[in-house]
């Protein structure tokens, strides 16, 4: 009872704070001085039609670096926390009763793979496991359809084949999602978007791929290497800006080019691409860690 009253009091206090904030709200008819400064300077100094990306990568480049560092730490700590669980679900997978004998056979290469080093050889094993899993589901259509009808009530954590709709939809949508992600990344200086948003789009494409093919695994080692190199190059470009232009993460050491052209705005497209690669790889690794 005491707890409920306390919670109610806290909620009312928060309500009062927010009511004050909303009550004092008036729409500004002019930009604040700092915003006005950025808006007038960014197109002239940086040559970016999309001012937001220009601000994020140049004037607030240090903040972006901090954001990326936070994301890196999140990925690292997720990997650290969820690493020990890797062995447990794998052993539970084998001991748990299976719907069909064929599915255990399909799950075994996956198990062997999670324990072995994630090398290139693992990829072919995953493909094989997937193919055999597909054959297994084709053999037991009745089992599959009941599982499709009630995905929420599925108690076993073992990877099972996704439904026909998800698989076919993924095959159609995946290239489009990846293309859109790449478009958003490399056009960050021209239209809405940029490295962070595009990286998130690419990572959601990776997520769709993992949903449609539960037996497959990501090559986490390769992704980590790519991500680390993207980070190193990002900081390297920043230092290059320090040496050749005005300061750390200043993209103006490359020619500004024609306003609105694809190759323009100094090093902003390069930095954006590196950010996109880094964010996409990091989020993909986080998703892969959360999969059982």
């Amino acid at each position, binding site marked *: 009872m005491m707890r409920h009253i306390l919670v109610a009091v806290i909620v009312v206090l928060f309500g009062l704070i927010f009511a004050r904030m909303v009550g004092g709200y008036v729409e500004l008819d002019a930009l604040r001085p700092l915003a006005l400064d950025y808006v007038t300077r960014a197109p002239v100094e940086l040559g970016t039609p999309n001012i937001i990306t220009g601000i994020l990568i140049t004037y607030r480049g240090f903040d972006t670096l901090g954001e990326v560092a936070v994301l890196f730490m999140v990925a690292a700590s997720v990997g650290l926390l969820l690493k020990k669980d890797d062995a447990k679900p794998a052993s539970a997978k084998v001991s748990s009763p299976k719907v069909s004998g064929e599915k255990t056979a399909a799950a075994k290469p996956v198990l062997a793979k999670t324990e072995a080093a994630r090398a290139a050889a693992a990829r072919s094993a995953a493909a094989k496991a997937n193919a055999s899993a597909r054959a297994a589901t084709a053999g037991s259509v009745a089992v599959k359809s009941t599982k499709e009808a009630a995905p929420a009530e599925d108690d076993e954590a073992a990877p099972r084949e996704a439904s026909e709709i998800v698989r076919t939809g993924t095959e159609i949508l995946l290239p489009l999602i990846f293309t859109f992600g790449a478009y958003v990344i490399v056009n960050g200086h021209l239209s809405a978007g940029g490295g962070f948003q595009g990286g998130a*789009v690419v990572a959601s494409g990776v997520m769709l791929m993992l949903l449609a093919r539960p037996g497959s695994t990501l090559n986490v080692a390769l992704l980590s290497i790519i991500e680390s190199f993207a980070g190193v190059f990002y900081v390297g470009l920043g230092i290059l800006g320090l040496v050749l232009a005005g300061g750390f993460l200043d993209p103006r050491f490359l020619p500004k080019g024609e306003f609105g052209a694809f190759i323009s705005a100094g090093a902003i497209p390069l930095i954006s691409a590196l950010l996109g690669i880094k964010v996409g790889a990091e*989020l993909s690794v986080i998703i892969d860690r959360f999969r059982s």
Partner: protein
Amino acid sequence: MLEFLLLLVCASILVSGVLAVCLKNVLPAMVASGLASLFAAVSFLLLAAPDVAMAEAAIGSGLATFIFLYAIRKTGNGKG
């Protein structure tokens, strides 16, 4: 017109937020929280912030929802 749309979207955020808290079953609650993120992304778009909307739609309603899904699966559908 814009104000009306914005009010509608904000009401949707509220409703899905309350649903996410109140629903007893974990899976629909997760979907409701994803829906709240999606409506938030729409509201950002209406407020002329497409960059933020893109990040919110991809991360808030896409990735976060499915990370919840994996977490629910690992903890036995939230029943245990």
